[in-house]
């Protein structure tokens, strides 16, 4: 799949999902406001010109700032894959909880339009024919990913706890 946008360092959740749309909370309603202040990209997303699985690449500290979960749910809605040199903690956690695919790749060299593939522990740039190693996500989050997100994971724990309670 192609790199559809290349962003700088320190892209905040205010840029991903501007505060003035925060009264909209439901995951099926948030995608319309993804990168609302980046009108060209926002329009392409809304017109469904960007296929699911496309790559968004960024510098370090992507998703820094506010804990607003809308910043993860709006990108999840378009099934984008985010590759960054590093991520803000809460954004990364929200992404994993909601099933938005995030990849930490500090050395990636790629430009908009390049064709990328994920092969095991590497991002492969088919355009410049280079391999870039992926850093593992925090191990604490693996179980949540394996369960398909935090809601099914918590539901499973709830059922176990409920079954174990004294009658």
């Amino acid at each position, binding site marked *: 799949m192609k790199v559809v946008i290349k962003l700088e360092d320190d892209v905040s959740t205010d840029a991903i999902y501007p505060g003035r749309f925060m009264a*909209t909370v439901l995951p099926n309603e948030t995608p319309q406001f993804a990168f609302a202040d980046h009108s060209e990209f926002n329009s392409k997303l809304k017109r469904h010109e960007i296929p699911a699985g496309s790559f968004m690449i960024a510098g370090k500290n992507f998703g820094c700032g506010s804990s607003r979960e809308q910043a993860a749910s709006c990108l999840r809605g378009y099934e984008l894959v985010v590759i960054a040199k590093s991520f803000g903690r809460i954004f990364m956690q929200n992404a994993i909880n909601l099933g938005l695919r995030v990849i930490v790749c500090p050395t990636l060299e790629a430009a908009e339009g390049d064709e990328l593939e994920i092969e095991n522990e590497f991002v492969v740039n088919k355009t410049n024919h280079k391999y870039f190693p992926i850093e593992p996500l925090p191990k604490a989050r693996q179980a949540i990913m394996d369960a398909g997100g935090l809601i099914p994971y918590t539901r499973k724990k709830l059922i176990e706890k409920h079954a174990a309670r004294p009658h």
Partner: protein
Amino acid sequence: MGMTIVEKILARASDQPFVKAGDVVEAKVDLAMSHENAALVINQFHDVYKGTGIDANVWDPSKIAIILDHRVPAESAKTATNQKKVREFVAKQGIKKFHDIRGDEGGICHQILPENGYVRPGYLVVGTDSHTTTHGALGAFAFGIGATDMAAVWTLGSVLNVEVPATIKVIITGKFQPHVSPKDLILHIIGRISAEGANFKVIEFHGETIRHMNTSGRLVLCNMSVEAGATSGIVPADKETVRYLMGHAGVTDEIEIMQPDADAEYDQIVEVDITRLTPQIACPHTVDNVIPIYSTEGKKVHQIVVGSCTNGRIDDLEIAAKTLKGRRIAKDVRMLVFPASWRIYKEALKKGYISSLIDAGAVVMNPGCGCCLGVHEGALGDGEVALSTTNRNFKGRMGNPGAEVYLCSPAVAAASAITGFITDPRNGEIS
């Protein structure tokens, strides 16, 4: 090997004698805070229970706090409907630590929690707000989480799969020069270690400066620790913490003081001597773009903001009111003041600060977050510049991606309101 304070808190919360950075634990929560985004938490919470046949009841209503503060009073029908949904949930679940849009008990969540004695040293506090780090000022481990994470907390009473963070020890020595404050110190630290310098780590504050700093100042340091990427900031509790909780927050029962071990292992140690620290400014559009004030003195500003969870406490309003008393703000400047809570607002009224501010030309708003994050009142025009005591200056933050936000202390904000330009409060004519 000993434990840092956060390791001790997570060991206790996960019923283990010892944990170390990197361990993964499931930790019991002492306090779970949300604001308007409780509307999303409620949605996710009900989603967890869907199809289980189990009644959707929160694990412990006495440990949940909900404060309406982000868009108050509601700016739209949508927000009002979300707030209504939150009220109905609060009533149904029997949540008592609920602070509605009311003059007798309302305010910004990060002020309401401390001033009501909801946070104690050693507590594990989570909040669906990134500035939940603020509560580390009282010796708690407090950090921001997303709405779905909070739904899991409401269900199970614990935060799942927490990786014990490494800790950066910051030792601060020296005395502040006149007109230099904890806000300048934290901006300086963020500038020095960068916006991701403490990512996934905790900042533990130590040193003689901290021991002599009041709780109000400590709240500023911990509030903005997240702007260096930190999971949290924390000040180990001491006599000052007890003084604040018993004297100002109505706490009457015994307060446990938890300290890190002398042989705790730190990720790194940073020493800061503040003797020669000058007022600091964070320039657009990142909080770590920090420079000493002289490098940007004379920059024209259109809107001054004093207040928020960072700098809306009584000592902040005092600085602004005393600077502006008997003076007028510059003609082409708007000044907005947001006390952090209605309790602070009322105290400022009694002390005459509010009338000094209004007479100078400032507009005193109701306590709330709206202006800081650009969702409710105080938006900037195209090409305008704000100078603000709030905590973020990201592009678009104050409601307009075509405007700029500079961050500063209350002393700098007040001095600059008089001139209409970024002004050093140590300038003789102002002070």
